């Protein structure tokens, strides 16, 4: 682990410092390249020198061969010496040697170190006689030849005939006694005139050779060259036969440097390129690495932050393993809430902490979550704490797996809602109490908007009273307005609007059509709720007052009946006061007059008058009796009567009068119509109305009486109309059906017929109405119930 870490950090180090890495890589490549290049350089240089050495060797070999030839020549010459130590045929031998070896300039025999024989003699006379063994100039080389007993080449030196030459000396022993030398003189030019030498590329190399002075050990360069000899750039070879040192010097020692400089530059470029590439290669990861570090720092901080949030949250938070349902991690608040410690919680699961009644519900939601049917869910349920206490909580469950993945873990956030639940319960209880209170009230409690009259509350009592459910009432706009009896609607709405505008509580009555179609009387007691000086809503209670209304109606009816009876009673008192009193007062006056009468004649006149008063009184009494009979006769017998038959009967009774006045009777009544009536009353009603119509006919025109029968409001109506003189109903309408009310001075008018008619119709439970226009005619309508 640690190792990996250090490695990682090492790697990281490279990655983090891309520039340094680049430079290091650059240097590494520089070293590698320079090593390679120098190696190559060395190889190239060696190859060059090897080539030079080979060339030099060839030259060396060629020179060596020449020198061997000269040795043979020198030996040949020495053979010309006879046993006496005198050369024989020197001239001829010399000539022959020169002829075969053109390189040899001259040959010499030097007995005892003194030059004695020279061929050709010409040109070389100067050398004759020189004792070389005693000459400082030549002795070292001469002795060297004796010493080595080989041919030793001396020189080069200036030839007397000009040019450089070398002298090969071979010590000759005769009878093991030093004789002298055999010598050949060779032109240097010819010696060097070798193909190897000539073919040498002089642009590349130059040749030099030196002689090491035997005496001084000093090296003397022989060839004249422009170039300066640098031993560094040269290969050497030593020819011991002459103590010569051959040099082959490289004319262009630096020719290899230039291409290698280019190569070096190329390598440098390549190295820097690699370095740069490495830098840029590591630069991106470095940025990423820095970002990564920052991010991981942030992540760490966030983790700390979330950890503290997790721990210090005011709500309980748990991580739950979705497979086992166990709490893998819980926070402090959860522990406080449930009473379990963090360790204890880890061995627990949903089922062990949830109220038994809520487990099923919770599992159902979880299953949905697992099946991806829902993305998350909230649920109000009960936990049971360690100490057995029930805690109401609101849990929010969020999955930690992505869509399509199998469930792994989920988070549960737990909020303690016990207090709220408690408060809720109190509210619900009190609401229920109020609701049940409202619903027990024997009236419909309601609330609606003051402007739109849309109901937002109506108590359940509405179903008992009107049959509508409160839901349909509330959910249907204008339900109330649409169910007021059309007759009452305008008044109700107007009144309501007026009172609301005045912000006045009101109390009024109207009718509503119930669900079963019955009409229900409602007393509506309304409170106007004012907010901000504006009528905001209306609240009230509707009470079913149908029964009260019925009672009221009955009361009204009986009141009307009583008033009617009162009226009749009053009428009766008038009858008594007017009709009876008028008779009694007349009697009283007549009696007075009789008492004060001055003659028998006058007395008789008064008695006659008294008699007529008595008759009138009797008639009045009879009429009164008849009316009392009608009014007191409660159980009048009724039967089904044919209307036409009774009408015809009446018309035949009135036949004379009809004929006399020329009345036209138009009847639309056929013999199918039957009415349930008392026979005498029907006869009387028809007689009175038709005889009235005949009596009050207009004398300017032919009287016409129309008799019709029809149904109006489920009641049979018999209508009798004439074109007679008519009645001014404005003046007399109120007393038309009164007793002794007459509207004309007609001689037959008694003022009793209509009074009796009305009484009879009333007694049958019907009614009579009149329509009339003076001078146009009158129409009576008899309603038969």
């Amino acid at each position, binding site marked *: 682990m640690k190792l990996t870490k250090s490695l990682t950090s090492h790697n990281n180090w490279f990655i983090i410092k891309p520039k340094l890495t680049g430079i290091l890589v650059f240097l590494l490549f520089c070293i590698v390249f320079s090593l390679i290049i120098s190696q190559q350089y060395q190889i190239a240089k060696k190859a060059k020198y090897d080539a030079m050495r080979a060339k030099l060797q060839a030259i060396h070999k060629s020179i060596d061969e020449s020198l061997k030839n000269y040795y043979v020549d020198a030996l040949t010459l020495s053979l010309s010496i006879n046993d006496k130590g005198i050369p024989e045929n020197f001239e001829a031998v010399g000539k022959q040697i020169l002829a075969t070896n053109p390189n040899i300039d001259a040959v010499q025999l030097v007995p005892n170190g003194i030059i004695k024989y020279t061929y050709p003699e010409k040109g070389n006379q100067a050398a004759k006689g020189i004792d070389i063994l005693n000459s400082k100039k030549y002795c070292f080389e001469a002795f060297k030849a004796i010493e080595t007993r080989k041919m030793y080449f001396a020189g080069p030196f200036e030839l007397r005939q000009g040019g450089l030459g070398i002298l090969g000396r071979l010590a000759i022993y005769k009878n093991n006694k030093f004789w002298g030398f055999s010598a050949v003189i060779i032109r240097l030019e010819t010696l060097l005139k070798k193909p190897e030498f000539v073919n040498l590329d002089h642009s590349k190399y130059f040749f030099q050779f030196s002689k090491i002075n035997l005496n001084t050990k000093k090296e003397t360069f022989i060839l004249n060259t422009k170039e300066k000899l640098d031993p560094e750039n040269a290969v050497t070879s030593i020819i011991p036969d002459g103590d010569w040192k051959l040099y082959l010097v490289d004319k262009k020692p630096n020719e290899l440097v230039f291409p290698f400089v280019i190569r070096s530059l190329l390598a440098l470029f390549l190295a820097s390129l690699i370095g740069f590439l490495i830098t840029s290669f590591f630069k991106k990861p470095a940025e990423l690495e820095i970002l990564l570090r920052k991010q991981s720092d942030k992540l760490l901080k966030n983790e700390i932050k979330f950890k503290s949030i997790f721990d210090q949250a005011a709500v309980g938070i748990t991580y739950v393993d979705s497979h086992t349902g166990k709490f893998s991690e819980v926070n402090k608040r959860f522990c406080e809430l449930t009473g379990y410690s963090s360790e204890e919680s880890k061995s627990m699961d949903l089922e062990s902490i949830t109220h038994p009644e809520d487990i099923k519900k919770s599992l159902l939601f979880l299953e949905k979550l697992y099946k991806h049917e829902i993305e998350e869910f909230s649920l109000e349920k009960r936990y049971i704490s360690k100490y057995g206490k029930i805690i109401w909580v609101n849990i929010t469950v969020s999955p930690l797996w992505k869509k399509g993945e199998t469930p792994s873990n989920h988070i549960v956030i737990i909020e303690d809602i016990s207090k709220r639940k408690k408060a809720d319960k109190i509210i619900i209880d009190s609401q229920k109490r109020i609701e049940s209170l409202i619903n027990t009230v024997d009236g419909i409690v309601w609330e609606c908007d003051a402007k739109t009259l849309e109901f937002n509350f109506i108590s359940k009592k509405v179903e008992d009273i009107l049959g509508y459910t409160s839901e349909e009432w509330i959910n249907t706009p204008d339900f109330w307005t649409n169910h007021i009896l059309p007759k009452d609607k305008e008044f109700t709405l107007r009144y309501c609007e007026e009172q609301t505008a005045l912000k006045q509580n009101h109390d009024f009555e109207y009718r509503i059509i119930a669900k079963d179609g019955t009409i229900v009387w409602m007393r509506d007691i309304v409170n106007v709720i004012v907010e901000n000086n504006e009528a905001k809503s209306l609240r009230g209670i509707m009470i079913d007052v149908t029964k009260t209304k019925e009672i009221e109606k009955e009361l009204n009816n009986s009141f009307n009946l009583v008033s009617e009876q009162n009226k009749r009673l009053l009428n009766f008192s008038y009858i008594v006061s007017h009709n009876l*009193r008028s008779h009694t007062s007349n009697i009283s006056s007549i009696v007075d007059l009789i008492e004060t009468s001055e003659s028998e004649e006058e007395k008789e006149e008064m008695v006659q008058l008294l008699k007529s008063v008595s008759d009138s009184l009797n008639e009045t009494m009879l009429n009164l009796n008849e009316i009392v009979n009608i009014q007191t006769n409660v159980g009048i017998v009724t039967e089904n009567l044919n209307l036409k038959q009774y009408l015809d009967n009446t018309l035949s009774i009135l036949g004379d009068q009809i004929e006399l006045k020329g009345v036209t009777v138009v009847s639309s009544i056929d013999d199918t119509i039957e009415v349930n009536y008392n026979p005498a009353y029907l006869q009387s009603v028809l007689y009175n109305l038709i005889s009235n119509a005949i009596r009050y006919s207009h004398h300017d025109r032919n009287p016409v009486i129309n008799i019709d029968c029809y149904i109006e409001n489920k009641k049979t109506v018999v209508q009798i109309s004439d074109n007679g003189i008519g009645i001014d109903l404005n003046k007399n309408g109120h007393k038309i059906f009164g007793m002794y009310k007459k509207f004309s001075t007609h001689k037959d008018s008694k*003022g009793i017929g209509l009074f009796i008619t009305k009484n009879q119709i009333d007694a049958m439970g019907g009614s009579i109405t009149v329509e009339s226009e003076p001078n146009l005619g009158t129409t009576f309508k008899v309603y038969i119930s």
Partner: protein
Amino acid sequence: MKEKTIWIIDDDPIYQIIMKKIIVKSEIFSSNFSFSDGKEAIDSLKKIILKNEKFPDIILLDIEMPILDGWGFMEEFALLKPQINAEIKIYISSSSIAIEDKERAQNNPGILGYMSKPVTLDNLIKIAS
């Protein structure tokens, strides 16, 4: 005193006969006329206005009458009043004992008094004086 005229407006013919007898006996009035309803009396008043004849001094008016009753007469009379340049004393004489009628009579400024039938000679003398 002898110049006074009295009108009886009543639909009861027996009452008319009786009143005539009493008026004659009283010897206060020079003449008397009877009308069986208010309309007849109004028509006569109109005639008097036209012919510029003498208006009655006293009218005894019944309430219950056909065509035009006592109250109807009073209304018509009020319309004619500007054209009448004499003082006519109108008394109600009715068999009605209803209080309403009495009150109504009292409230009408054109009616001087209410006499319940029967009207006696003494009553007549009293109103005439």
